[in-house]
């Protein structure tokens, strides 16, 4: 039973991590129908910025809890700024042209950002200090779950609640829904579409950065390439749940996290990713628009 619980919680951790990245993917996709390939890189830049802030503040001898909070906040601000700038440079001029062009532009951006960090920093894995304190409550179940993981669950849950409130109950959320449904129509009724799109990138990027700092704390290392794999996995999760739908992204991430965790735990760790992809293919065969996605009917 303990083993099952361990796998369950491990899957939950993975799922929450995927969810933090997948939410940004799905938000951007919902609004401008673009696979933002550079999203994984934004996550990586968040982790790196966090590491830099932590290193500087540790040298200054600050309190560890203050350091991790400040690092997460600075990383979020910077990633948001990156997301904003990337949208302005690489995607905005391409609005209205073929969707594949925007995808290639996103791939180019992703390559650029990876190599930018590689050249400015290093190609090696850098150890990432775990500054999240061990909570007293976690002590008895320490062998199953660490406090970092609990922080990840809480962060993911808070982000989900926050986003739901934002989308459902604020003016900006309403504007986002309007743009997602019909951009031209939203423009006609006075929605500032450019602002909404920028806002979406800013929110999605800062969530990814939060994920980046937490995951790096959990795993304990970071390099310039971590964003790519994480981005692919999160994208798979977003599609699994039904891309464009936020509950779908979370559900897809959790399902992916659990299947991976149970599969590795009970069957084989070699074919973990194979299984994840086979699972994805199977789900999409039976539900071509993802678990929560609505299948579109064409109007002729």
């Amino acid at each position, binding site marked *: 039973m303990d083993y099952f619980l361990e796998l369950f919680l491990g899957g939950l951790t993975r799922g929450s991590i995927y969810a933090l990245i997948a939410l940004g993917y799905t938000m951007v*996709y919902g609004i401008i129908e673009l*696979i933002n390939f550079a999203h994984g890189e934004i996550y990586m830049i968040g982790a*790196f*910025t966090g*590491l*830099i802030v932590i*290193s*500087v503040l540790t*040298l200054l001898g600050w309190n560890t809890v203050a350091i991790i909070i400040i690092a997460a906040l*600075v990383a979020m601000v*910077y990633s948001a*700024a990156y997301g904003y*700038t990337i949208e302005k*440079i*690489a995607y905005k*001029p*391409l609005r209205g*042209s*073929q969707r*594949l*062009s925007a*995808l*290639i*532009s996103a*791939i*180019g*951006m992703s*390559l*650029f*950002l*990876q*190599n*930018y960090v590689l*050249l*400015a*920093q*290093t190609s090696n894995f*850098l*150890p*990432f*200090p775990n500054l999240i304190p061990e909570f007293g409550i976690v002590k008895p179940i320490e062998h199953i779950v660490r406090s970092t993981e609990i922080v990840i669950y809480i962060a993911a849950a808070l982000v989900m609640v926050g986003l739901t409130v934002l989308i459902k109950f604020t003016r900006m959320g309403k504007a986002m829904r309007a743009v997602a449904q019909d951009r031209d129509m939203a423009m006609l009724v006075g929605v500032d579409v450019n602002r909404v799109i920028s806002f979406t990138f800013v929110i999605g990027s800062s969530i990814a950065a939060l994920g980046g700092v937490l995951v790096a704390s959990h795993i304990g290392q970071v390099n310039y390439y971590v964003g790519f794999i994480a981005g*692919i996995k999160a*994208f*798979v999760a977003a*599609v699994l749940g039904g*891309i464009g739908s936020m509950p779908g992204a979370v559900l897809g991430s959790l399902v992916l996290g659990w299947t991976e965790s149970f599969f590795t735990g009970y069957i084989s760790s*070699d*074919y973990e*990713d*194979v299984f994840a*992809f*086979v699972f*994805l*293919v199977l789900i*999409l*065969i039976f539900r*071509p628009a*993802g678990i929560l996605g609505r299948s579109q009917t*064409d109007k*002729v």
Partner: protein
Amino acid sequence: MMTFQEIKKSFLAAIWFMFLTFPIMVIKVNTIEKTIEWHWWRMAAVGLGAFGLSFLWRYLIRRKEAGKRKAEVGGEDKQTLVQRLLSNPRFYLPGLIATAVMVVAFPFVFSLYQTNIMITALIYVVVGLGLNIVVGLAGLLDLGYVAFYAVGAYSYALLNVHFGVSFWMALPIGAALAFLFGILLGFPVLRLRGDYLAIVTLGFGEIIRLVLENWNEFSFGPSGIANIPKPGLFGIDLNLQQSTTFIYFLMIALALMTIFVVRRLQDSRIGRAWIALREDEVACQAMGIDKTRTKLSAFALGATWAGMGGVVFAAKTTFINPTSFTIWESIIILCVVVLGGMGSIVGVIIGAMILILLPEYLRAFSEYRMLIFGVILVLMMVFRPGGIISDVRRTYKFEGLGNKTENKSQ
């Protein structure tokens, strides 16, 4: 006043980029020795660079928008210089002859190293043209195309290791196996569209690679297969130089065959069906085109070329392992197609040449080449989203009908 505003904009851009790049560019951490280096000069460089480049950026964006407006007003299809040259017989024929002479002379004039690069580029031409069928003509976004490339390469390598099958036997077998895998992938994804299709194909590519990596008994795992023989020429012993030249001409022949077949396919019934499918799936079905067959044939035929490219790749490098078939490879092939201009054969050839030769010749700036490559991809797409040579839509002109109206079929 205009100029003052421009300067102000650029100044703000410079400030913004200095802020943006501050932590990553300026502060270099070494978490092992717990030291921090500060590179303030980099911040100044970023500021100056951003200040200058933002002028250029705004100028180019303005030019692009002016061009777009002109095209909307004029309504005429603007042909690029290359397209006009290609359609003009006076340049076309000498151009063709010059190209042919260059192609034939290439391995004798340039070094072995250059010839090898050119072979790689030609493999990408063939594979790119294959993907062009799937993405450019049929409009199915395939992010796992490298899987078929891997199928081709591994079928030659494995058949050779176990049964001693020669290159010439392996070429059709590899192509046939890739064809089968194309159908195998095609079936489950028939109902999917757009990005769901993209992600499933991506998954398929990863499945193949991961199986090759983990199934040691079958594929020799990550250590790969070495000592794959180069293609033979009627049993004549070739030295390294000669065999490279031979593969070069083999690739030229294969590329020419691919171009010929793809061209014929494009104009055939099935080719038109692909284009119809790309333009509008529902209308296409309403016109009585069998969607299943059309999609499957696109996947299968596209995969065939990748299979052949894979066989040649295995023969050329004489060593393969799963790291040659990562998703990046799929992305690069996709970039070849999109950068060159989707649906256009000349475009794909130019795209392959640029994408493969550019990183090779950028080796002089070896550290920066992938960075530059990324920038070029973005800039290309921003300023020429249709690719270098965009596919010219086939138009029918009805002339001399009464009041001489020109109807363009959409």
